[in-house]
């Protein structure tokens, strides 16, 4: 596992504690791996320019 991923493992443990999860030791690396994949997806998504005026897709219907 890379240094970055080790950092994500620590982050995952901290975020679990923040939410009151008891994250089993054997889950930490797997959860970190999933979050790492999501972070890469997010970075790719964020890289796409959208104007400030862009509206989100869901619309609340009162």
């Amino acid at each position: 596992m890379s240094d970055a991923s080790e950092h994500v493992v620590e982050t995952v443990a901290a975020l679990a504690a923040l939410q009151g999860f008891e994250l089993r030791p054997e889950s930490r690396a797997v959860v970190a791996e999933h979050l790492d994949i999501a972070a890469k997806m997010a970075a790719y998504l964020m890289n796409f320019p959208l104007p400030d005026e862009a509206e989100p897709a869901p619309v609340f219907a009162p």
Partner: protein
Amino acid sequence: MSAPVDTLGAAETAAAVRSGALSARDAVVACLARIAALDPRLNAFTSVYATRAIARAEAIDARRARGETLGPLAGAPFAVKNLFDIEGSPTLAGSKINRERTPASSDATLVQRLEAADAVLVGALNMGEYAYDFTGENQHYGASRNPHDPEHMSGGSSGGSGTAVAAGMVPLALSSDTNGSIRVPSSFCGLFGLKPTYGRLSRAGTFPFVASLDHLGPMARSTADLALAYDAMQGADARDHAQARRPAEPVFAELDKGIASLRVARAGGYFASGGHPDCFAAVAHVARALGASKEVEIPEARRARAAAYLITMAEGAALHAERLAARAGDFDIETRDRLIAGTMGPGHWVARAQKFRLWYRDAVAKLFEEVDIVLAPATPTRAPRLGQKTMVLDGVEMSARANIGIFTQPISFIGLPVVAAPVWTGGERLPIGVQIIAAPWREDLALRVARQLERDGIVAAPVAAM
């Protein structure tokens, strides 16, 4: 009747029952016998409702005896992915935890509608836990097996639906599709599957996964059965907040209108790389038959997949956060750690994904000004072996579970209607599907194309040789 009673299609069963050539009771009893014979090997069903089904069938026969006109699905057996409410049973959604849910007080809207058309519910079907799955495997209930080769995956998350219909246990199954869960098992098990436009069919009375992306639809062995079931299920339902305010637009009578006037193209770019050559050969096979030489590029499909992935993680996590905190050990391990990761992403990822979704919708809408139908692979490979963790695509080894949906996710992300159609090439034992994608609300066009291909023998969904 062209086939033994126990493997008739829904339309054929209904025609026989309406004419009096077959009783609904005999149709249902034959179906139950086939389930009893095959399911121990294939594991499609988590519950069979024999008493309810026979009572329902007898009531249909009694109505016919009184001279009443029967519905378009008279006596046709069907089963539902076990995230549909069935009165008197807890709605499992593939989980162990949900066994403790209060039994449903009524059937899901779509179950009610199929039964209003005189179809007969016979059982609930296995699925990946909480629908977060592309394999059809399940730690609590076992894998639903592919009837064309039981050592291979049925596909998920509607694995039991794929297994049951391909094995001829039922002619029709109802399933859900958030990122590909109708189209993937249709591809792996060699079936026709319809994922309608987002907001078309009511989701009331089903256990959700990702409200932004959840769709429901039918899987069957013929386009006629898809269309009959789809027509029976359309219509407004105030119980689904996300349902579009549109009138029903029946398609069955449209099926044979042909495709001469339709502009059909293949999706290039993202959809023409990153898969096994078999999936591209399947698309080429269909495109050739349709004379579709034009290639179009669906813009930013890779980013659309990323955005769908992030929304799925976050909304899935929001749905299950309390259960994850209280009883993580009761989750399927393959589901649990992805859901936990979903609780940890920054909120702005999802907000951005929802903004990108509108941009992408508009960009793809422009594409549909030039074409009526776009063809793309349904899955990057034929069904992997059960338990297979990785697959090699374009020389790169990658997680099978995370990548089976690469071609379905960018399409459901903006709710486009799709018919998955099964292709058999090169004498292979396992099929592979092609997505026939139309503009929003044009299910009729996708079904017309699938129908033409079916008639010409280009695609087919045979009952597996058991």
